[in-house]
């Protein structure tokens, strides 16, 4: 299940500062997401179950949440979008989800342009902050 919500940069910074990721690094990384990102992907596995997620009322860009499985995000959203030029995607996900997205991005002429491995590993999950951007001339906006 994915969720698309709108969020602007100010709200992103505010939001990232209160997302209960276990250590400082994740929200530092979130806060470091550059302007120009068209959407963010957040992996729900990296915050404790039952914790309220402060997602409501945020303005563009879009926010997508996953539970580690990128299937629906890919099929419903990224596959169509990544066939067209442009679209910079950022995220904080498990390294497993990033592996899948990175491979799929490569098929569409895109690259991971920023990657920061975050601490701590929680329940065997390695969080990573990343950005995927167009690389090949056919998809550069």
């Amino acid at each position, binding site marked *: 299940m994915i969720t698309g919500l709108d969020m602007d940069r100010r709200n992103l910074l505010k939001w990232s500062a209160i997302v209960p990721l276990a250590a400082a690094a994740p929200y530092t990384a979130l806060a470091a997401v550059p302007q120009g990102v068209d959407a963010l992907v957040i992996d729900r596995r990296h915050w404790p179950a039952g914790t309220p997620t402060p997602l409501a009322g945020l303005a563009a860009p879009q926010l997508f949440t996953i539970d580690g*499985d990128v299937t629906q995000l*890919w099929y419903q959203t990224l596959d169509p979008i990544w066939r067209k030029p442009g679209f910079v995607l950022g995220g904080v996900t498990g390294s497993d989800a990033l592996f899948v997205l990175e491979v799929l991005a490569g098929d569409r002429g895109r690259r991971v342009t920023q990657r920061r491995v975050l601490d701590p590993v929680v329940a065997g999950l390695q969080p990573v902050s990343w950005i995927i951007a167009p690389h090949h001339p*056919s998809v550069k906006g």
Partner: protein
Amino acid sequence: MAVLPPDLDAPGFARFLEELRGAVGADWVWSSEDDLGPYRDSFSPVWDTAEERHASAAVAPAEVEQVQAVVRIASKYSVPLFPISTGKNFGYGGPSPNVTGSVVLDLKRLNRVLEVDDRRNFALVEPGVSYFDLYRHITERGLKVMIDCPDPGWGSPIGNSLERGIGYTMPFFRDHYGASCGMEVVLPNGELMRTGMGALPGAKTWQEYRYGFGPDPAGLFAQGNFGVVTKMGFRLMPMPEHYRTGLITVPRRRDFVKLVDHVNYLSDAGLIGEAVYSSPLAPLMAQPDFLALATKLGGPADGDMDAAASAAGLPSWQVDLQFFGPEATTAASWDYAKDRILSDIPGARALDGDHFPLPATEQQMLNTTQPYRSAIRRFGALGVPSLGMWKIVSDDGHVGFFPVLPRSGEAVFEMQRVLGDALKEFPVRPFFNATTTPLYWHSFAFQMVYAPSVKRSDPDHNAVVHASMKKLVAVAAEHGWGDYRAAPIYQDDVAGTYSFNNHALRRFQEQMKDAIDPEGILAPGRGGVWPRRFRK
């Protein structure tokens, strides 16, 4: 790590690349180390070692004519090409070639679904079409056919079937090469050939009768290196009206022998989809005493395993059964399966699973409606592509050894014991133990699985994995069990085990390779078949 093709110097390589750019466009030829990163085997146990195989470049044509042009240019410069469809062959080498310096022929831009017919139930696709693409094409048009896809489903029907990959629906469809019908192939000289009825101009039966007339060479292109497949047909299952599940459990270890025989009958009679075996005792492996029993050298006594099952209050084995078809037919088939098995195996029990009309709802796909713990992965079982499998991939991926064994309980017990004992010298988890069950993926044979993880940050661990893979290939072969699919770094080992009559099969394949591709333009070494130029 920049590499050159075999026997080609840097100026020659530059001229070769320039000709490729002229054929497909400058944007679709890559040779920088950065650009070639995606063409490494990211699951490789020999990552960053001398054994890792590296491409020298990659080229992505968009049309069949461009594929032909690339093959002819490669032939002119004697550069080996390594064709890939979408390059998702993870666990079996990914997109990496057999020969360092090969140029990856990336067919991802040939991505057209050419035809899906839901009256005659087939599809014709290009190699860059993924299972997701085919599924989207079918669902958006409301076509009444079901695909059979692997898990994960991001690979291509052509690539997966050429690797003899599998899915999870009915036997007739889940052997993906077996369900293929008709190929178009670019040969090593650049010529275009069609197999079966495709060779008859004007024929409308290319995807319905695979043989045509005379010898059928289609098998040469599966796990082979005799051509580049640019189109391929597949039979599709008409969308079933209904899906039903049921679970059978049996109490004693030896009951597995009869259980397998019954399920074989149900499968071969076309009554069930993939049967998923498991052991309710497997969670007991977390207990040291049970672990010691289930991994005992030479295998445990049946009585000891039965006593452990009895003490835990658990049956020894279970099988998830799946039925496709009209609702009444699925109900009758399940009733028949229950009667047949329960009347023959004392203590066997049957649990009715959920059943529903197709297409399934989201909750049904997520398998939350099943009244018991099931080993079935619903997405694959219902032909819906998924990427959820990646959540269970640990470390930096894994390699895979999947020995083929007979569909009998006795054979399963023997493989548990033999390969379990063979692995004892390696510090890996006990893949083969007294609770290990077979995979019923291919339609008429079992496989068991050894898939240890790899860790790029731990070369010692990877060396253990690498050594254990080679040992298992050898030990399995001593017992008549062969791998069905392997990464390039293991293909020679595996091919070497198919050695009847002093390797007559390999010598025959080499003769053919020498005849049509002596310079090894197409994937030299793939499937263990080397042309004269590369034979040691």
